[in-house]
């Protein structure tokens, strides 16, 4: 089973996202900020990371930059999932090494579409 790390400082968002992603047949691990997420990745590199932008301690952008410098850190598909919904943030995220970008509010269809887009899921 593929694994997904769900990174968001909101417990409610993590719970909603986790439910959607588990229904896509992923095993989920949660982290409340970028630093916790980096620890989780060092323990076990996930197949996918769903990543909030604004979080305490370490934000999503710093996390993805740090992740890409880790050994095997180029492997996870990183999908931002944030209220930062403007072109400048999107291009900055892509430059930093993100693979996809979900603009909140999101739903199951969008997550599924983005996971297919990046090859995490086969198109139905």
């Amino acid at each position: 089973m593929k694994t997904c790390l769900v990174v968001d400082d909101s417990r409610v968002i993590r719970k909603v996202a986790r439910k959607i992603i588990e229904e896509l047949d992923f095993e989920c691990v949660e982290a409340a900020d970028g630093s916790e997420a980096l620890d989780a990745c060092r323990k076990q590199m996930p197949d996918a990371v769903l990543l909030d932008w604004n979080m305490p301690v370490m934000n999503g952008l710093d996390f993805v930059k740090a992740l890409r410098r880790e050994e095997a850190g180029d492997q996870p598909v990183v999908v931002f999932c944030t209220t930062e919904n403007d072109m400048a943030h999107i291009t900055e995220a892509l430059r930093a090494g993100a693979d996809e970008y979900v603009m909140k509010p999101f739903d199951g269809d969008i997550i599924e579409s983005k996971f297919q887009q990046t090859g995490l899921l086969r198109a139905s």
Partner: protein
Amino acid sequence: MIKQDDITFVAAEAFKRSGLVLSADKGYLLESRLAPLARAEGFPSIDALLTAARRDQGDRLLWAITEALATHETFFFRDNTPFDLFKNDILPVLTRARGAGSTIRIWCAACSSGQEPYSLAMLLEEERARLGGKRFEIIATDMAPRVLEKAEAGVYSQFEVQRGLAIQRLVQHFEQNGDQWRIKPNIRQMVNFQKHNLLEPIASLGTFDVVFCRNVLIYFDPETKKQVLSRIARQTPNDGYLIMGAAETVVGLSKDFVPVEGKRGLYVRSEAGSGRTTRAA
């Protein structure tokens, strides 16, 4: 609840106008589609809307009802496979087969709010270097003015641009305007939108090298399906292509097209079949 004779009335009028087949058990669909229309037209109920529609001499309301009953669901790069087929199987063959300076014409039948033709336009733009300088023309038609208006504007909600569209394509081909996203002018101008009803002749639209007619015929009865396919065949050269939805088939409806083996949803003219790896299923 909508009364049975109202369902029968609406079904007959919608069929006459659009070929849309509405079975008697679709009362729930009628309610969910007509309630917003009744509100928008200023009627207190669906009942009042239908009473007015029966009296309406100019049949404007009956067209509005027909439009409301049609399914306009669509999204960018829907189902992926047809776009892969277009890029990998159709484009290389057509660009080789057509002479320098010729225009390759593509028709999106029942294009709804434009996501399908714009997806093709984005692909053509991305493939430009490999297209040998050929010109392309995308004609996109729908019978519903409301969705065509949206298509022509090329403006989509945040929700719409997140279904099927890779983020790199959003960045490359769209401009942001508040919480709306507008397709860039270079993509917009590749598509020519026209109002057209599939029950009507298509000769005036010209001939097409590729026809996308996906998830449309499923709403028609067999006789209408046959007529539409036969008209498409008359407007397609012998080396032209037809692409239908994954759950659709021409088998039993048209002898003009045959499926391409191993390429789901892709059809070629049967006259061209002998020289290719095709076989009627």
